[in-house]
C-alpha cells in the first residue's frame, strides 16, 4: 500500500489548462482568439484564417503544435513482446528507426485507440496517441520486463507539413532529412541538442514531425520559423487540420469512434474491422490482446463499416443521416466527419454504412440540414461510396521528395 507522501508544495491550480512548450513562441501570431482545449493544453482552432492555414499545407508549409499528444516510452528486454501483445499488428517486423500506424483493443476486440508506434532500438518504443491510458498499459504489462513512462510533459512536438517542408528542414541544417522515407525516423543535431525527425503526419501530404526535449522548444521554433519565413511557413490550428485529415481519409478518436474506455452506452464500441482497419490486424503473429474475440468477429460478416463517401452538390454534410431512398424510408448510415474539399472540389465525408451499403453500388441519400440566414432547410442529396484516401499526392511517398 502506498503512503500519502508528496514532496511538492501544493500548488493552487488557478488555470486548469496548461500552455504547451511552444506556446510562448507563437503567442504573438494569434489573431482571433479562437482557442480550444486539447488534452489539458491550450490549443488553437485557428490562428488567423483557417482556409489560409489549410492551403499552407497543400501549398507551402503549415506547422501544428502537437505537444498535447500523449506519449508513452516503453523500454526493456520485453518491450517488443509487450508491444506485440498490445497492438494488433506485428511490430516484431519493425526495424529500429521506424514508425507504424497501429490500433489496439481490449480483450473484447473493441478499439481502445489508434496511434503511432515509434521504434528507436531493439528495446525502446514510444506510443503516441490522443488519450491517456497509463493504467491500461501498466495492467497489460504485468509479467513483462518493461518500464512504461508517460513523457507527455517532457517531449515537445511540432508537425511540419506541406510541399516545402523538406526544403525548410534542409535549410535549418538537418542534412540528409530528404532521405527519410515515409514512416522512417532519425536523430539530427541542432544547436547542441537532439531533434528526432519522423516522416509522419496527419495531413496526407509530405510532412515531418519534430520531437525534442521541452526545454529546447523556443530555440527550435525560432530556427524553424526564421528558416521557413521566405517559404510561406504558417502556424495552423485544428480547423485546418480537420480539413486536411478528412481529405487524407484519416479517422479521429471521438469523431469516428469512441475509445471503449469511455463508452457508457451499449453498442458504442467498435472493432478494427468496423473501422476498416482489417489491414492492421495480424492473426499470424501469435497472441495479442483481443485476438480471440477478433477472430470470432472476423468469421462473421460486418453489420456496419466506416467508409468514405462522396455527396452531390456542395453543402457540407455534417452529422447527416444516410437513407436508402430520397423519401428517407430507412436509415442505413450516418456521417461522422464531413468536408467540402477545396482541393478536390468534392463534397466528401467519413460515414458508417450498414451492410451491404458499405460495399458500394447501391442508391443512397444523405439528409443534410442547412442553416441559411437563420432558417433551417432540409435537403436530400445523392451520395456514393468513395475511395479513401480522398487525396494523396505523389510527394507524400517520393524519397527524396520533389524539392518544390
Amino acid at each position, binding site marked *: 500500500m502506498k503512503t*500519502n507522501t*508528496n514532496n511538492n508544495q501544493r500548488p493552487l*491550480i488557478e488555470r*486548469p*489548462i*496548461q500552455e504547451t512548450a511552444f506556446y510562448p513562441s507563437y503567442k504573438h501570431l494569434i489573431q482571433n482568439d479562437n482557442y480550444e*482545449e486539447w488534452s489539458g493544453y491550450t490549443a488553437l482552432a485557428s490562428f488567423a484564417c483557417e482556409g489560409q492555414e489549410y492551403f499552407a499545407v497543400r501549398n507551402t508549409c503549415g506547422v501544428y503544435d502537437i505537444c498535447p499528444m500523449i506519449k508513452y516510452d516503453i523500454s526493456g528486454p520485453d518491450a517488443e513482446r509487450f508491444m506485440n501483445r498490445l497492438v494488433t499488428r506485428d511490430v516484431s517486423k519493425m526495424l529500429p528507426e521506424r514508425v507504424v500506424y497501429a490500433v489496439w483493443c481490449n480483450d473484447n476486440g473493441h478499439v481502445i485507440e489508434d496511434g503511432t508506434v515509434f521504434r528507436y532500438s531493439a528495446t525502446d518504443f514510444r506510443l503516441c496517441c490522443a488519450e*491517456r491510458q497509463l*493504467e491500461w498499459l501498466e495492467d497489460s504489462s504485468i509479467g513483462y520486463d518493461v518500464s512504461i513512462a508517460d513523457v507527455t510533459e517532457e517531449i515537445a512536438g511540432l508537425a511540419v507539413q506541406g510541399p516545402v517542408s523538406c526544403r525548410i528542414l534542409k535549410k535549418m541544417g538537418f542534412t540528409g532529412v530528404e532521405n527519410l522515407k515515409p514512416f522512417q525516423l532519425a536523430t539530427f543535431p541542432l544547436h547542441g541538442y537532439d531533434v528526432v525527425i519522423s516522416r509522419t503526419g496527419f495531413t496526407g501530404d509530405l510532412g515531418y514531425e519534430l520531437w525534442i526535449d521541452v526545454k529546447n522548444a523556443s530555440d527550435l521554433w525560432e530556427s524553424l520559423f526564421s528558416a521557413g519565413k521566405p517559404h510561406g511557413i504558417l502556424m495552423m490550428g485544428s480547423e485546418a487540420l480537420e480539413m486536411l485529415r478528412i481529405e487524407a481519409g484519416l479517422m479521429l478518436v471521438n469523431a469516428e469512434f469512441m475509445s471503449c474506455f469511455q463508452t457508457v452506452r*451499449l453498442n458504442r464500441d467498435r472493432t478494427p474491422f468496423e473501422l476498416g482497419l482489417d489491414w492492421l490486424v495480424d492473426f499470424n503473429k501469435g497472441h495479442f490482446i483481443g485476438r480471440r474475440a477478433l477472430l470470432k468477429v472476423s468469421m462473421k460478416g460486418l453489420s456496419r463499416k466506416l467508409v468514405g463517401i462522396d455527396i452531390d452538390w456542395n453543402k457540407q454534410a455534417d452529422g447527416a443521416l444516410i437513407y436508402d431512398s430520397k423519401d428517407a424510408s430507412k436509415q442505413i448510415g450516418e456521417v461522422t466527419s464531413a468536408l467540402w474539399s477545396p482541393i478536390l472540389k468534392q463534397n466528401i465525408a467519413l460515414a458508417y454504412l450498414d451492410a451491404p451499403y458499405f460495399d458500394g453500388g447501391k442508391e443512397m441519400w444523405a439528409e443534410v440540414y442547412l442553416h441559411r440566414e437563420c432558417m433551417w432547410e432540409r435537403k436530400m442529396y445523392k451520395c456514393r461510396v468513395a475511395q479513401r484516401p480522398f487525396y494523396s499526392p505523389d510527394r507524400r511517398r517520393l524519397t527524396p521528395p520533389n524539392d518544390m
Partner: protein
Amino acid sequence: MKHDHYDAVVIGAGHNGLVTACYLQRAGLKVLVLERNSYIGGATTSISKYEDFTYSNCSYVCSLFRQEIARDLELYKFGMQVIPYNGGAQIIKNEDGSHDMLGAYWHADANRRDLERLSKRDANAYDRLNRDIMRQCEFIKPLLMRTPPDPTSFKPRDLMELLYLGKRFYGLGKERMLETIRFYTMSAADYLNEYLENDALKSYVAGGATVGTALGVYSPGTAYVLLHHAMGDIDGTVGAWGFARGGMGAISKALNDSFIASGGEVRVNAGVSKFIVERGKVKGMQLEDGEVIDADLVVSGMDVRRTFNAVDPNELPAWVVERVKNFRFRGSSAKINIALDGVPKFHGVPDGSPCLTGDIHISQSMEELETAYDDWKAGRWSDKPYLDMLIPSLIDPTMTPEGKHWMSIFIQYCPYEPAEGGWTEARRQAFGQHIVNRIAEFSPDFTEKMLHMELRTPKDIETEVGLTEGNIFQGELTMDQLIFNRPIPGYAQYRSPIKGLYMCGSSTHPGGGVMGAPGANAAREVLLDLGRRN
C-alpha cells in the same frame, strides 16, 4: 361524533410524504398531511437555531431528487432551486507532519493534474472507475421511478416488469452482466482496489460507501452504496451534487407550498398514535391528542417499523410482524451544524482555493475508515470518523449574515446506543467535542471561529425526526433490503397487508436520500388502485 373525513391522509410531512400528497391532491383527491413535529420537512429542513443563521439541519446536499417530480409539481414556482457545487478537498497528512490537499475541481484537467502529483496511474484509472460507475448508473437509473416487480408473482404486470428488468440486464451483454453481478456483491474497498493505488484518493471515494450504512468499506455490498450516491444528477450531469438555495428546507417548503396551492391541507403538531383498521381495511387514524380522523386511504411516510407499530398486530400476518421487527435500521450516522465567524483555514489548502466550495474530507486511508467502523461495532463513536464537511454559505448567500458561514458535518460512525450506557447530555457534549477536536487537527482556527453548534446523534435523529434508530435512509441500503426486498418481500409495491394502507417513505424502493421517488411511485400505485391516472 362526526369526524373530519378525507379521501387520503398522508402521515409525515417529509419530502416523500409531501410528494405523494401533491400527486394525490392534483389527481383530485381531498388530501390531508399530518405532521408530528411543529414544522414540516422531516429530515429535509432548514430551521434556524442560532441568530440569523439557517442550517440544513439533517440532509444537507441534493442530487437524487427526481427532476420529473420537480417538473410535475412545478417546484420552481415555489422557490426550489438546486445549485450544483464544484470542488472538494481531501486533506492529506504527510508522514513528516506536513499537509497536502488532493483537490476536486470543476475542470477534468485540473483534477487530473492534481491527481497526477500523487499517482499518474490513478489520474487515468480514476476516469475508468467513473466510467464503470456511470455504466452501473445507466442500468439502474430507469428503475428508480418504477415499482419493483414481485419475482414470485404471475400477475401480468409483474411478469412484464420482470421481463423489462431481465431484458435490460441481458441487454448489457456478457461482460457488463458479469461486471454488474460482481459490483452488487462487492465491498467498496475491493472494488476501488481494482482501479486505484493511492490511499488518499481511495478513501476520498470510499467514504461515500459508508454513509448511513452500518457497514465498513471492506463489507460486501458497500460498492452499491457508492452507486447510490453517484446515480443522481443535476440537469443531466450525472453524479453532480448541489445545494438547495436557502437550505434543504427550501425543497420541503416548495413541496408544501405546491401542495397547498393545489388545495391540500397540512396539520402540524399532529402525531398519529394508531391506525384504525376494520375487517382488514384502514378507516382512519387516532391522533396523539385523541382526535379521530376518517380516511378512505392512508399513505404512511414513516419508516416501515413505525408504520406497523401504529397497527394492531392482530390485524397483521405474523410473518410481517416478524419481518418488520428484523428490518435493519442500525443508526450509525450523526450530524453537526456549526455557525462560523468566517471561513476556517485548513492545513494544506491554499488560501482562495475553490476546492472549499465542495465536500471536505480528512480520512487518511482505507484502514482508518475500516477502523472507524470497528469502533462502531464496539458501541463507540469512531475515534477517527469519516467526516463529510461542507460550507454551503460559500455558494448560498441566503443562509448566514455577510462574512459569516456555516458548516455541515456529517459523521459516520456514531452509535445509536453507546455501549458504556445511553446518551446522557454529558456524553452528547463529549461526542460533539471529540468531532470538533478532530476537525481542529486539520484546521488551526476552527475552534476560535465557532459561534454555535447544533448536534444530532442517531438517538437525537430518532427522537426529533422520527427515523427509527436514527437511520437516515429509513433502513440500510443492502441488497437484502433493496428493490423487491424493500421494505419486505411481498410488500415492495408500496402496499401493505391492510387494505388502504400504503407506504411512501424511504423504507420503500428505491430507498433513502432526498430523491422523492418513493413518494412519486407510491402515489402512482394508490391512483392505480383507485382506477385513476395522474
